[in-house]
């Protein structure tokens, strides 16, 4: 028992000794992730961005993150905790953090907040998101060139506008090459279940798909593609390691430049509330190497990427028809960002309904 007390006393001593003051001149940056950093997808890529900040600014910044924060009642507490810990700027990286972020921001006017994928802003709350659909247009073109069965399998997580927009953009890209292409869509109602992703992938292949597109996080569908000898695309990060002979390319979430610029703005005192929705142009979306395809297809893909980047091509350029044939965008016009943001209808050529 005496030893026990001695140990307790040692703990207590260490405790008082260690509560020193922290360096005040550092810019403190906080992150809230919805998944574990080990999800190898959405949260993982945001954490890559956080590491880029550390690399760039070294001693001048101090970054913290809290991972696996449920979008329910816990979010507000975690965000507020980060604000109270003296963070100067806080990135909240999931749509479900929108209202909690605004609530906390109202209480801490001196802290800057950056909310990913939302649409509500305040004087100290910016929003940002990436035009991943630009990449999906290219996937559509590649898929149309590469498919032999004329059937594409598409695995969606949940039918939010982001995913629906991706499907439409993919389809428009595919139709620019082959108007007859068919896409089969399976929703797994989860962002996070590699097993189910694999099951869905198998079901699609069994139904005749020879190219898999996924809007879920893990590399499981790509592995299935490799096993069954069909082609696929990586999601969120370059997953070529998982399917060296079967990944055509991947849409890579790339937050490094944006995060560095926002932290820089806080350091310079030039931070303003903004809405950033960037694609290839802002380096938020990267394409992994175009591979496992003939030279001419890779060349076409690279050209499309360059055209979208320069603004010469917009995936949602008219004419665009809804499923029932109604014209949404006239020839020569492009779909406005508001409609894109809330997209809940399919373009012509996709069978099935958007699940509601």
């Amino acid at each position, binding site marked *: 028992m005496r030893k026990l007390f001695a140990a307790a006393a040692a703990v207590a001593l260490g405790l008082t000794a260690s509560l020193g003051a922290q360096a005040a001149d550092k810019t403190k940056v906080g992150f809230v992730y919805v998944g574990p950093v080990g999800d190898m997808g959405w949260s993982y890529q945001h954490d890559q961005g956080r590491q880029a900040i550390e690399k760039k600014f070294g001693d001048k910044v101090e970054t913290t993150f809290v991972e696996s924060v449920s979008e329910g009642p816990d979010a507000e507490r975690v965000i507020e905790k980060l604000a109270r810990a003296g963070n100067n700027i806080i990135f909240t990286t999931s749509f479900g953090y929108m209202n909690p972020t605004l609530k906390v921001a109202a209480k801490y006017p001196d802290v800057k907040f950056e909310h990913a994928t939302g649409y509500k802003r305040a004087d100290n709350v910016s929003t940002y998101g990436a035009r991943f659909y630009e990449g999906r247009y290219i996937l559509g073109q590649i898929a149309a060139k590469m498919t032999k069965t004329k059937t594409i399998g598409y695995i969606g997580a949940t039918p939010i506008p982001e995913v629906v927009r991706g499907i439409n953009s993919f389809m428009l890209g595919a139709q620019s090459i082959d108007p007859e292409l068919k896409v089969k869509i399976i929703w797994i109602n989860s962002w996070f279940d590699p*097993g189910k992703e694999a099951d869905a992938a198998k*079901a699609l292949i069994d*139904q005749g798909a020879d190219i898999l597109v996924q809007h879920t996080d893990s590399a499981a569908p790509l592995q299935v593609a490799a096993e069954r000898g069909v082609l696929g695309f990586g999601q969120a990060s370059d997953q070529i390691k998982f399917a060296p002979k079967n990944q055509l390319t991947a849409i890579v979430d790339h937050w490094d430049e944006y995060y560095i610029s926002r932290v820089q703005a806080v350091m310079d005192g030039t931070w303003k509330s903004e809405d950033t929705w960037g694609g290839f142009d802002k380096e938020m979306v990267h394409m992994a190497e175009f591979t496992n395809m003939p030279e001419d297809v890779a060349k076409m893909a690279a050209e499309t990427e360059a055209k979208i980047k320069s603004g010469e091509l917009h995936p949602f350029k008219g004419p665009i028809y809804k499923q029932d044939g109604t014209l949404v965008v006239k020839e020569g016009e492009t779909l406005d960002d508001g409609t894109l943001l809330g997209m809940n209808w399919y373009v012509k050529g996709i069978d099935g309904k958007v699940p509601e």
Partner: protein
Amino acid sequence: MDFADALLVSIVTASTPLLLAAIGELVVERSGVLNLGVEGMMIMGAVCAFATSLTTGNPYLGILAGILGGAAMSLLFAFLTLGLVANQYATGLALSLLGLGFSGMIGENYVGTPGVKLPTLDIPVLSDLPVVGDALFNQDILFYIAILLVFFVSWLLFKSRWGLILRAVGENHNSAHALGYNVNRVRLYSVLFGGVCSGLSGAYLSLVYTNLWIENMTAGRGWIALALVVFASWLPWRTIAGAYLFGAVLILQFHAQGAGWEVPSQLLSALPYLATIVALVFISRNRTVARVNTPSCLGQSFVPDR
């Protein structure tokens, strides 16, 4: 592979991890112990199997490591619930928390690395059978183990002296003790067996089902396995029925979606759960089966009076 064969292979893959974990938990529960920590043991099995197979390049060593991971967790559970008579429900849930956290710590360096796939073992002639050939006779060793385990457990419980003792312990631990059996030792072995099976199930996830490591990749399968034991009314053969029913509905609803069924996908996703409930309602209308097979001492700790 033709369509039916491929479909069966998918169903078998989705069901086998459930079967492995369920058959283990069945033995645990038959001895009167309820271990709600299947999820935690399973995920430890998954991460140990993945890490080991990657480091050594040998998936069979991975399986061994998965077994050890699951077994270690089950021993922790046994120490608390049998040694210290801690509450089984709460300890099991805490075991799940611990497993999810600890596996994340172990697996940190393995995120984003493709794993080593467990090879399939082709059983000559039989694997050429139409429809069922690939699904049943061109599988990996874990599938065969799963099926053999069902045979084994069925024999163990109902044909062997061991099984008689084990069931007696689960049925009435006081009488079993009075007859001179060491109740907690029997339960220790049962819990360990459950840990081994959950470890195998985890190994199946990271070596066969999806060849990668992602945190929380069990995604609730431990809970389904628990439910399947109840579904099986604690009868080994019925775990096969339960696991494959669940897996089949899961896979078929994906096919329904791909074929363009215009039903809300959430409803389709809910089908495996609803199907299990409905099937159990039909099975359990025969009350005697349920009454005879439910271990009466389930969840109760035993301390010998002296």
